[in-house]
């Protein structure tokens, strides 16, 4: 049973921001509640005011800019992203990841913006969106700023959002030509133990670019830049050794913590395994045969 709270339903981002400013720590944004309400039910947190952002016009939609950038309103549900024809065609890895978040009932109600803002370490979207170089737009009355998604995550359940700020949009630029992304995860509970996202751009038998992000393993999802550097400019023919090295570096840099989802050592091992498999999957989707 939930403890009583007041519901506020602002008509605009500015009004929501003003409510947050007025009520401070007593207020929390509500964007579906699939994570927030669980914490409230368990008595871990309590708020006197929930500020419902789902009814703010314009926060729920998805659109694609002329340059191909996908703009996802923060209150778009996982299910809306998963089923959007543009996402399916042009951001296939994103559609696939979304189709595999939690279960269908969570995806029907839970929102992408809510997921990112809750910053639960064992979540899927944070890692994959980082290999797309996604950015987030944070707004409050009279000011908006755009940050790389990576900067949003400060710690477990902690973001860089200021008290009166709202995440309003996630922008996902298209990958360059001859690129593909993949996200693989492993877990034995409802949430992933380890999630590894990669994006690869291929040119003339080389990795023209390689991006790696790891989620769920440590406190926050992070890009693994050392691992990326090892792969960049490598010939595909050398990829088995390079992927092994990249996996080792990513495992070390992932800041693995032992928790309910597995020991740090176990998660590090899985990072290397999933990194290799994710690159193979991405390369295969580009029709590139990787030497075994």
């Amino acid at each position, binding site marked *: 049973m939930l403890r009583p709270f007041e519901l506020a339903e602002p008509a605009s981002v500015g009004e929501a921001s003003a409510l947050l400013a007025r009520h401070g720590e007593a207020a929390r944004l509500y964007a579906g509640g699939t994570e927030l309400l669980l914490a409230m*039910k368990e008595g871990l947190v309590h708020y006197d005011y929930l500020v419902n952002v789902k009814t703010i016009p314009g926060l729920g939609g998805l659109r694609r800019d002329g340059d191909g950038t996908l703009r996802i309103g923060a209150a778009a549900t996982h*299910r809306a992203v998963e089923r959007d024809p543009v996402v399916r065609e042009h951001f296939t890895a994103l559609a696939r990841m979304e189709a595999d978040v939690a279960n269908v009932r969570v995806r*029907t109600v839970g929102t992408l913006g809510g997921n990112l803002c809750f910053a639960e370490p064992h979540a899927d979207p944070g890692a994959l969106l980082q290999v797309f170089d996604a950015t987030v737009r944070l707004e409050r009355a009279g000011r908006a700023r755009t940050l790389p998604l990576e900067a949003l995550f400060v710690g477990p359940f902690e973001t860089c959002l200021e008290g009166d700020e709202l995440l309003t949009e996630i922008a996902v630029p298209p990958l360059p030509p001859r690129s593909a992304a993949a996200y693989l995860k492993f877990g034995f509970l409802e949430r992933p133990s380890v999630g590894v996202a990669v994006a690869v751009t291929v040119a003339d038998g080389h990795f023209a670019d390689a991006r790696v992000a790891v989620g769920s393993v440590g406190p926050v999802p992070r890009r693994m830049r050392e691992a990326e550097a090892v792969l960049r400019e490598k010939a595909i023919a050398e990829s088995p050794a390079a992927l092994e090295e990249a996996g080792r570096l990513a495992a070390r840099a992932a800041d693995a913590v032992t928790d309910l989802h597995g020991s740090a050592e176990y998660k590090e091992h899985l990072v290397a395994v999933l990194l290799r498999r994710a690159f193979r999957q991405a390369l295969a989707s580009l029709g590139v045969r990787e030497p075994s």
Partner: protein
Amino acid sequence: MSDVAVAVTVNGERHELTVPPWETLLECLRDRLGLLGTKKSCDVQVCGACTVLLDEEPVSACTLLAFEARGRRLRTIEGLAEGDDLHPVQEAFVEHGALQCGFCTPGMIMATVALLQENPTPTPDEVKHYMRGNICRCTGYKSILEAILAASRRLAPGAETGRGA
């Protein structure tokens, strides 16, 4: 704002309710409307026993606030049978023995109805993916899977006995 006015259609019947914002849809259905078919089990949306359809999409009634049903259509297990005629999914569950204690069954059936509306001819893997998160702790999943596939055949376009979901 304290209580919220919620006009909602439940199993075809319109209700005008006033609910406190912290009331869950599960509490509303069971305690306010007396619809006891929707079960409270884990209460943290991992088991699926409370699955109902909100505008024909499956949701966990235990973790959805009742006010979210404003202006929308709800279907619960009570809304499936027509008089004494069970819904084809219910029939398939009975015929395949896809239940033991029956506690998870309303949620399983509602999820199946949603699945087959979205994908009338799912593969076994598609069934397993969609039904992930609907947990049964006594009968195992083999008979449930068989029942869902049988219901799919029965409801598929062109099937002689189907009457549509």
